[in-house]
């Protein structure tokens, strides 16, 4: 329960008086408040600074250190105070949490020190109020990154047992880890540079010999250049294959941008090798050589800056796209205008609108080559408008884009961060909140098991039961919910069980009894005996019958399905559960919290209604009309007890 409003629980309970005249059933007994001591002042001595508060203030949050009995460990008998050897400044905000229900993060506090204090006092940081949560999370993230960097450095120093493949991959990714890696890094860098320079020099016209005109070096020293190219490509191929071998996930590696660049860099060479014989595609082969320039992108492995640039371009793609779009719009507009303006003049270069595109682009970017100039007056007017607006259209968005880079980049990061935080936060808060609802259901089941144990008197389950001691507040809250159940003659159930019931009622051929029929009896017995109707034999279900018939005289009491944290077993049909329980006496769910117990009882002959013993699990089967009145002896004991939640009785 959100203990911030624990002080209002008495009011909520008092308000339940509105249900009393309406209810048809007797109400359960209220939990007794044994601690009748008056509210007292507690002194908390934190490293010499004394804080005082009411005991009930601390009791608001019973799952923290100060709210639970854990603080008794720190009680000092002589001075009659609780002494904590912790930071008094940080303690201020912790104590304020109890007082106001909101946890604040003091900005001057170191984040790890604050975290330690929170952990010590058993407070989860997620409940930090919205006002301080952002700051807290930012500081925490920075701290985490710092820790990670430290860890990475440490990791490089120590050598865990990695196999050869992992070592190689790490060498590729972090060249400074070992000398070999560094050598490899520089060698590849050198060869990339060599390859790029080769491509460039290839086209330079070498000194002309006497007889021939200038020809590019590539054609003059074909062999030399070919050897150089081959060497480079060999190195690149070896590097690529080695990276492919070392990659932890080969498929992911092959899809990555860097590997695509590698492939594109070396592919033209191989294609050229294959296709040198063929004459007509040699032209295409020549154009393929242009792809060799992509080798320069291989430098991005060597340069962090290039990688960042690439990433930011990618993240600002929408902005760039918009710029392109608006530019295109402007170009088309002005090109059209210029074309029609220059249409009249003779020998005009503006032969078509696409031809005017070139003029428009050159003018708008203020290049002004001068190969196309307008000759008419209208053309000159519009040409000047074009160049003026070009300044605006080009110059304005550029700084905007540059600032957009950083703004959008950081904004995206912050938005994702906030979304991730929000989801995790809400999940935790929801878990804590549903914990309160679940706590009620859990305590009901615990109560049920207790009843059963009392009934059968077995001790085997005692040690299996982990009985949580519920605080008085919790028990009062549960009592309140219980009264509501009694008033409306319905029970709270878990979502999963509810869905199971829906499924069951859908499959059930037997019509379930409407409450109105039972309420007309206006007797407490029928009203609350709905729960006991599950003991009544169900003529239509075949499964339990087949089970019990071969059980013979030995009756098995219900398999108690307490709480299974594993949703998987919920999907198992009831019949399977029955089957399983027959085979094993104890079933442990994966979560380890379930105990499905079978307690066998010898058949009390007087109580068998029909002679055919049907055992049914006390799970939520829909109520059935009794074919005959339930055994009276059990009935009276429960109705006199009054406060019993659910009674599971032997048939």
């Amino acid at each position, binding site marked *: *329960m*959100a203990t*911030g*409003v624990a*002080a*209002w*629980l*008495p*009011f*909520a*309970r*008092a*308000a*339940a*008086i*509105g249900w*009393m*005249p*309406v*209810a*048809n*059933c*007797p*109400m359960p*007994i*209220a939990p007794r408040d044994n601690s009748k001591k*008056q*509210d007292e002042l507690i002194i908390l001595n934190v490293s010499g600074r004394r804080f005082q508060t*009411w005991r009930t203030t601390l009791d608001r949050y019973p799952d923290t250190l100060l709210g639970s009995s854990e603080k008794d460990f720190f009680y000092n008998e002589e001075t009659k105070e609780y002494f904590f050897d912790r930071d008094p400044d940080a303690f201020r905000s912790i104590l304020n949490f109890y*007082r*106001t229900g909101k946890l604040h993060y003091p900005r001057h506090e170191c984040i790890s020190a604050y975290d330690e204090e929170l952990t010590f006092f058993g407070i989860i940081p997620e409940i930090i109020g919205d006002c301080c949560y952002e700051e807290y999370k930012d500081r925490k993230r920075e701290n985490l990154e710092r820790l990670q960097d430290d860890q990475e450095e440490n990791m490089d120093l120590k050598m865990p047992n990695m196999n050869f493949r992992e070592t190689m991959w790490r060498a590729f990714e972090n060249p400074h880890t070992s000398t070999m890696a560094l050598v490899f890094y520089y060698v590849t860098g050198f060869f990339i540079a060599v390859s790029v320079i080769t491509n460039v020099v290839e086209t330079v016209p070498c000194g002309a010999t006497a007889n021939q005109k200038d020809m590019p070096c590539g054609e003059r020293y074909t062999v030399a250049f070919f050897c150089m190219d081959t060497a480079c490509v060999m190195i690149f191929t070896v590097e690529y294959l080695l990276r492919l071998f070392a990659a932890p996930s080969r498929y992911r590696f092959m899809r990555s941008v860097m590997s695509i660049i590698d492939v594109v860099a070396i592919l033209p060479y191989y294609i050229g090798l294959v296709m040198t014989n063929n004459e007509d595609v040699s032209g295409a082969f020549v154009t393929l050589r242009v792809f060799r320039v992509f080798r320069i992108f291989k430098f991005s492995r060597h340069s962090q800056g290039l990688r960042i640039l690439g990433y930011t371009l990618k993240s600002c793609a929408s902005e760039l796209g918009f710029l392109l779009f608006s530019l295109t719009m402007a170009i088309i507009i002005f090109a059209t205008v210029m074309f029609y303006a220059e249409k009249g003049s003779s020998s005009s270069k503006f032969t078509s609108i696409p031809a005017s595109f070139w003029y428009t682009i050159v003018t708008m970017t203020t290049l002004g080559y001068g190969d196309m100039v307008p000759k008419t007056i209208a053309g000159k007017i519009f040409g000047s408008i074009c160049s003026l607006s070009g300044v605006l259209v080009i110059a304005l968005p550029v700084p905007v884009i540059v600032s957009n880079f950083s703004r959008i980049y950081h904004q995206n990061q912050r938005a994702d961060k906030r979304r991730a935080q929000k989801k995790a936060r809400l999940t935790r808060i929801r878990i804590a909140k*549903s914990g309160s609802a679940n706590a009620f259901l859990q305590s009901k089941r615990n109560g049920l098991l207790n009843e059963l144990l009392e009934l059968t008197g077995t001790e085997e389950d005692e040690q299996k039961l982990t009985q949580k001691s519920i605080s008085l507040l919790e028990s009062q*809250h549960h009592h*309140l*919910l219980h*009264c*509501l*159940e009694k*008033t*409306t*003659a*319905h*029970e*709270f*159930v878990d979502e999963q*069980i*509810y869905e199971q019931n829906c499924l069951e*009622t859908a499959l059930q051929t037997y019509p*379930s009894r*409407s*409450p*109105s029929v039972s*309420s*007309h009896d*206006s007797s*407490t017995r029928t009203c609350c005996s*709905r729960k006991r109707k599950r003991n009544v034999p169900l003529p239509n279900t075949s499964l339990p019958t087949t089970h019990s018939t071969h059980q013979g005289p030995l009756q098995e009491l219900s398999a108690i399905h307490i709480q299974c944290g594993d949703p998987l077993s919920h999907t198992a049909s009831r019949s399977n559960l029955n089957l399983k329980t027959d085979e094993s006496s104890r079933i442990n769910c994966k979560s380890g919290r379930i105990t499905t117990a079978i307690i066998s009882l010898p058949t009390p002959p007087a109580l068998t209604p029909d002679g055919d013993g049907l055992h049914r699990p006390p799970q*939520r089967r*829909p*109520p059935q009309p009794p074919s005959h009145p339930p055994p009276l002896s059990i009935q009276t004991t429960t109705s006199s007890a009054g406060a019993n939640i659910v009674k599971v009785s032997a048939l």
Partner: protein
Amino acid sequence: SKQVLGHALWSIVEDGELSTVCYRPEGLDRLVQQTKFSKKELQVLYRGFKNECPSGVVNEETFKSIYSQFFPQGDSSMYAHFLFEAFDTQNNGSVSFEDFVISLSIILRGSITDKLNWAFNLYDINKDGCITREEMTEIMHSIYDMMGKYTYPHMKDSAPKEHVDSFFQKMDKNNDGVVTMDEFLETCQKDENIMQSMHMFDNVI
């Protein structure tokens, strides 16, 4: 004869508009006279009240949100609304500490007739002295809404209505379609369960 206890101490003026009103209750001794609580109990109550509502009054929204914390599975807003109406004896849209504590005193420390009176007042939405079927249906719906969806047995839409029918059958002796105060008191006093449950929360404070 209802005295207006407490007074609006000062109002927070924002942009020339009166936005929040701060209440300070009358002295502790007067409250001890008006209610059946002891001084210490009133102190404890006020501390809790003031902690949640530092301005000294609670409006309906806060009321509803506080009440909903206790019923996480269902929707308690309608019932909280009816409660608010019952607590707000002066009908001014807010519940001050006096209203709060006077009503609590009736519920927890009053005689059985007072309690039944209070319950009747809660059900009688338009405060005309009799509970009609429509009023009871609304109350019943609000109670059933608090259960939420996940119940056993499956909550039928007709469940509240049937409950109302059984209530009227029990209470409405002369079958005139409404339940008056006398009928209500008479029937409740004859019903042992109701009598017993009315005393259940006596030691809540």
